[in-house]
């Protein structure tokens, strides 16, 4: 591998993003070349690490540098098949997207900001998968979310874009907080963030704590990978430029949850029996995946938005991956590999899906598929690429996803849970259905008014170039399946026998169940389609409201929180902030009444006493001569009183 590759593969893009604004001052060309160069270098670093891992000739798998020594926190890299697999995918895919962006984003304003965040995203995502400790992984996890927010809000002058950006960041934050709890719990139990330390000691954690950690990790993965019930943000994220949607929300960032669960599995490598013992966890993972796969597929079938198809498709396909992980009972097993292998095939076909759609939207100016039709004559190359998407996404051999989906289905079969298998089969059927619908609505049928009026042409060559590379990879990747299995050190073999087997036949049959109705209704008899839709009114309503998740989050949760906040604010304004004034009023009232009743009263008393004394003494002065007798009587009376008092006292003392 290239020198310092494990470090440079993420440090280089992260540091380079800081230079983008500086180099942009030299001109647009300089900036574009710089970004492409950095992406190329990053991809080179990542790919250079593959041979050593493949042939198992690594000298050291981990290296770290002290970051906060007094707390034992380090920054480090981990080189193992999982991290290199992801790192290669991310860097290579980012390179393709950057090349695509040169054509797609040409002429937009604010491109310096765009490339800044694209490079930062590239570095952070790679840093996420290359981390060797949880804290570092979490930091990159959050930075990736920040980049997602910034890139989704790229066209920030539009209010709906701003709202979408905030929604994306907030919903993924809920997952981030769950992951934070999991990591803190892990540290509290073990005293270290490091993966290698955790692998050695995870069996020591009591099962109750481990259950909490496992479910919190699942929470983090569900939010980041847009699984039920936190899947609504992914469609909102389609406000982003298509290149961003392809990179972040199609190929890399949403896979972070898959990476997290796969990595979590590998922590149990030395304690393989512990993972299945965590109550309910594996079945939760499997069912969340399966249900999301079906629900996502149905939403893709319903949406009129051309960008909605790959968005919901991503949700659905990641559901396939998560389901596969859920039926794996240990790391490096069949299900574990199935999920990861499908992840890469999905990156290729979904990326291709996004990129081709970018060209279509660019040409027509609308995202509504109902206004499209008959594009196959005007954009033949795009049509061909979308056919590749159809075959790749559905899983027709020899495309890679045939093998990956086949592996997923066979690992699901091995659990014996028929309901799970049926759900996945249904999802697969609907997958074929919605992709076929997309092709019919967009390319087949008669050309619509909108198409006839717009000057429709193929996208610029550079965009076609990027898309074609992905198309070739979709095709070629299937032949590399065995090599990938060996790379991941998994004991799985693919062969020609897979293609011509009974399970393939069942699969194709199920696809036809999904595909034929779509073909009939959308292509042959569209009027009949409308009648059918009207008759299925309740289902229609559910689908139209996206299974009411958006309503739940926006109307119930968000408004509820705002109402509580308003309540607090009302309480604060009415009572709390007035308390000091009540206190002040009380004190002032006390002071005034003291002044009134006390001060003035005492003044009055003194005055009265003084007057009385004067009056009395003047009165006394007047009666001086005539009252000698009175004085004698008074004295005798006083003496008498005194004698009586003394006698009484003496009697009492006895």
């Amino acid at each position, binding site marked *: 591998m290239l020198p310092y590759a494990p470090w440079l593969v993420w440090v280089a893009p992260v540091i380079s993003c800081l230079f983008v604004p500086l180099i942009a001052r030299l001109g647009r060309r300089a900036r574009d070349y710089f970004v492409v160069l950095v992406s190329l270098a990053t991809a080179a670093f990542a790919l250079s690490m593959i041979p050593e891992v493949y042939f198992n000739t690594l000298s050291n798998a981990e290296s770290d540098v002290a*970051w*906060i*020594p*007094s*707390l*034992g926190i380090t920054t480090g890299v981990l080189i193992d098949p999982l991290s290199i697999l992801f790192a290669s995918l991310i860097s290579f895919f980012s390179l393709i997207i950057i090349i695509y962006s040169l054509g797609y984003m040409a002429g937009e304003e604010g491109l310096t900001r765009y490339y800044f965040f694209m490079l930062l995203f590239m570095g952070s995502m790679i840093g996420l998968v290359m981390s060797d400790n949880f*804290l570092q992984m*979490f*930091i990159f996890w*959050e*930075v990736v*979310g*920040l980049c997602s*927010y910034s890139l989704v*809000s790229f066209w*920030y*002058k*539009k*209010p709906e874009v*701003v*709202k979408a*950006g*905030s929604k994306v*960041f*907030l919903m993924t*934050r*809920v997952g981030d*907080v769950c992951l*934070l*709890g999991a*990591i*803190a*719990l892990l*540290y*509290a*139990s073990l*005293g270290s963030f490091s993966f290698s330390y955790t692998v050695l000691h995870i069996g020591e954690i009591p099962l109750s704590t481990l259950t909490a950690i496992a479910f919190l990790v699942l929470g983090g993965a569900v939010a980041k990978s847009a699984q039920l019930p936190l899947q609504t943000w992914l469609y909102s994220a389609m406000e982003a430029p298509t290149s961003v949607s392809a990179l972040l929300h199609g190929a890399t960032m949403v896979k972070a949850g898959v990476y997290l669960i796969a990595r979590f599995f590998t922590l149990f490598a030395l304690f393989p029996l512990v993972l299945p013992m965590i109550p309910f966890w594996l079945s939760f993972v499997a069912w969340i995946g399966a249900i999301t796969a079906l629900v996502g597929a149905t939403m893709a079938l319903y949406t009129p938005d051309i960008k909605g198809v790959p968005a919901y498709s991503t949700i659905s396909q990641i559901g396939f991956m998560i389901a596969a992980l859920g039926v794996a009972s240990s790391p490096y097993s069949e299900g574990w590999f199935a999920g990861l292998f499908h992840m890469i095939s999905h990156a290729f076909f979904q990326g291709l899906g996004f990129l081709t759609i970018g060209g279509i939207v660019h040409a027509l100016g609308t995202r509504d598929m109902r206004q499209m039709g008959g594009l196959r004559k005007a954009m033949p190359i795009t049509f061909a690429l979308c056919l590749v998407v159809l075959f790749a996404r559905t899983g027709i051999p020899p495309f890679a996803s045939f093998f990956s989906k086949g592996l997923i289905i066979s690992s699901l079969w091995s659990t014996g849970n028929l309901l799970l298998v049926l759900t996945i089969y249904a999802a697969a059927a609907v997958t074929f259905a919605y992709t076929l619908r997309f092709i019919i609505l967009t390319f087949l049928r008669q050309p619509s008014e909108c198409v006839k009026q717009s000057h429709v042409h193929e996208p610029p060559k550079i965009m076609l170039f990027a898309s074609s590379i992905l198309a070739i990879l979709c095709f070629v990747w299937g032949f590399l399946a065995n090599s990938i299995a060996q790379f991941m050190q998994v004991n799985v073999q693919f062969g020609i026998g897979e293609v011509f087997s009974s399970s393939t036949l069942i699969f194709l049959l199920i696809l036809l169940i999904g595909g034929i109705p779509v073909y009939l209704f959308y292509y042959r008899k569209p009027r009949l389609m409308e009648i059918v839709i009207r008759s299925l009114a309740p289902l229609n309503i559910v689908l139209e409201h996206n299974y009411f998740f958006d309503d739940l989050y926006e109307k119930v949760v968000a408004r509820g*929180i*705002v109402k*509580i*906040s*308003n309540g*607090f*604010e009302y309480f*604060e304004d009415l009572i*709390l*902030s007035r*308390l*000091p004034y009540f206190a*002040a009023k009380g004190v002032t009232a006390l002071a005034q009444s003291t002044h009134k009743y006390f001060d003035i009263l005492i003044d009055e008393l003194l005055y009265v006493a003084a007057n009385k004394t004067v009056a009395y003494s003047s009165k006394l002065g007047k009666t001086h001569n005539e009252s000698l007798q009175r004085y004698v009587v008074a004295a005798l009376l006083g003496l008498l009183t005194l004698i009586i008092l003394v006698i009484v006292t003496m009697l009492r003392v006895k």
Partner: protein
Amino acid sequence: MQNTLLLTLLLPALAVPIVYVTGRKSSKAAAILLALIAIADIILLSTTVPYILDPATGYRYVESYSWIPVLNSTFALFVDGVSLSLALITLVLILTASLFSINYMQEKKGLAEYYALLTLLFIGLVGVFITSNLMLFYFCWELMLVPAYFIIGGWGYKEPYRAAFKFFIFTHAGAVFVLLGIGAIFMLTGSLDMFQAQTALMTAQPDIVKWILLSLTAGFAVKMAVVPVHMWLPDAHSEAPAPMSALLSGVIIGAGAYAILRVSLGTVFPAIMATDFAVQFLHGIAVLGVLSAFFGSLIALVENDIKRVIAYSSIAHMGYVLFGLSCFGLSLLFSAPSSQLFQVILAGTVLHLVNHAVSKGLFFLSAGAIMKQLEIRDIREMGGLAGQMPITATSSTIAALSIAGVPPFACFISEFLIFVGAFQVISSDGFYLLPTALMLVATVLSLAYALRYLSHVFLGPRKHEEAKEAPFFMKSAMLILAAFVIILGIYPTFFINLINTLSFV
């Protein structure tokens, strides 16, 4: 150098009249003079770092002076890791606040008095952190208050004197409780030095010490603006001029938290550690912390005045710090200073004070920059400012995201460490499970109000064509703080090394 700390306090003290006289000639010169004094103090304090990191001195740097020889009284100035971190960040904030004031206060009158008052405030702000004599501590505590009253009242916004008066009465009432506590300590132990008092209180009656602890903490909590004694903060911080808001929200409420750490937990708490009351007290302040975090975050979510959003956010963050202090108190009870729990929670809490100071300072300064450009304060009437004032927008975004706890900005790592410490505490005391879970929820809320602020102010369609970028000194002040926010987020090690030298032995 022998008199470093004394010089640190004397420099601003002697400079007050000089700043005033300079201010009458040129306010810009006065501001620059103040900034230079701040830089000089930073350099002076930095020379004590080797002493603090050296175990031989007990991780402290102490200077002792005799005050009134007839009464045999001395006073001591000291710094240890925690004091130094907070003092250094205070100086950075004073520096940037004075630079910011050059442009911000340009059209206002009486600037000589303004800068002189700022210098007086300077003495109080730094003095609180570098003294171990309780009387001097109280003097500086009140010295933080009086110039602030005049600055808010004289150069504030709507009804400034009302807000200033509320601020004054409230915090002064709190200070009375502090004085009661200090007086009680003096009566029980005959000493006004924090360290001597700590040893002496160990032999006092726990019942009385309990009340001293409550009285002191109540007084400090008022300054720290936690629920239910937070009422002064929204008005004071939003009606004050922006540089003053930055200092108020960054430093002064941090001083309250520092006081709880140093005086309540450091001096008085060790005496009652063996009683049941200790745990009840810690649980109580944990509950208040969680309450403040929620209260502040929720109201910040619906406030529409640009500065009140930030003010309530300060209440929320002081809730985090109070929660961290509670966990720290628990670590005092259940573990040794060298243990990981102690190190982590201490680092988290004090680092959060440091990080919050710079982030909040930056937040208020950028809000001030916006208010100076547009005469409006309601965020619903703003929009699309990102393209018109890019540097202010970037600084404000950095500040808002730091406050929300997003890496790679400062407040992330400190909040994370507080959570890690809290989870470790749960294994010793199960009471903390619910508060910690609630604090995690509050973290989502803090991102919500941060994003709402950014969406309303900077994103969306342009509503005010006349807004343009902030002038030079305002920009530089904001950029200095933004740099600190980023550097502290990526490399907190310097401060953590300083902070972790703390021991209450």
